[in-house]
């Protein structure tokens, strides 16, 4: 798994400390969302690098 962002770490900590079910569920969903954001950012950056790579500049 990719390294966690500060926000994801905070959200997982909050989830572990929160007894209310609905609030805890929201923190877990936000942590998952933030991880997915990082994954998509990396993918998009990778695709940009791949598409802009020019063999003549090897």
């Amino acid at each position, binding site marked *: 798994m990719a390294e966690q962002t500060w926000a994801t770490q905070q959200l997982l900590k909050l989830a572990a400390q929160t007894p209310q079910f609905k609030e805890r569920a929201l923190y877990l*969903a936000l942590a998952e*969302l933030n991880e997915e*954001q990082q994954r998509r950012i990396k993918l998009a950056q990778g695709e940009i690098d791949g598409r802009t790579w020019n063999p003549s500049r090897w």
Partner: protein
Amino acid sequence: MSGGGFIKTLVIVGHPQIEDSSTQQFLKKAADLSEVTWHPVNTFNVEVAKDQALIQQADRLVLQFPLYWYSAPAVLKNWLDQVLTRHFAYPDAMGSLVGKELGIAVSLGSPARNFVAGAGENFSLSQIMIPFQALAHKLQMTYLPTFVIDQFGYQSDEMKAKLLIDYQRYLTQPRLGHFDDQTNWLVNQLTELIATVPEDKKQQLTLILDQIKNDQSTLEDLQMNLKMIQDTEE
């Protein structure tokens, strides 16, 4: 129905014993949202005009039920037969459902993985739900992917937490399956929560909210750049 809008949802819960079902009681609490109307159908006595009015006010209809012999329980089938009169529903008559969305939230006693060709149940849920898809097609509705709740009684606390949010999103997120709408939905929930918490927690949650919004715009920028590059390649 754009990404930022609110949609009104009518959940029609067809179950002969709603009060005794732990699944339905869980979902009822989850559905306690301002845009959602929870409408239990547990008898064969139907108030047709009243229920037709409920349908007319909604943008999204969700038929929710436990799977009984590969179909909806008899109370729900009866409700559909009574309420969706030809005059009310047919597109060439009143066409009251035209342009609305139809979702199915089905609970299963056996694992969802069994519902695939060659596995235990041998038929997929998409196949089993075809009568509802045909209904949506006939009435010119948009048919949504089915929401499946399987083996609720066996789910861990963490699985139930995920179920809660996924179900709430199924009821109220504008475009299901769009990551940007999912982000906006969760951002709205967090913003609402921030308004209710004490000051120290407010600061912490606001910083988290800012990072999620920043990541969202970073992603948007990257995707825009990517689209420009793709366009020049063509």
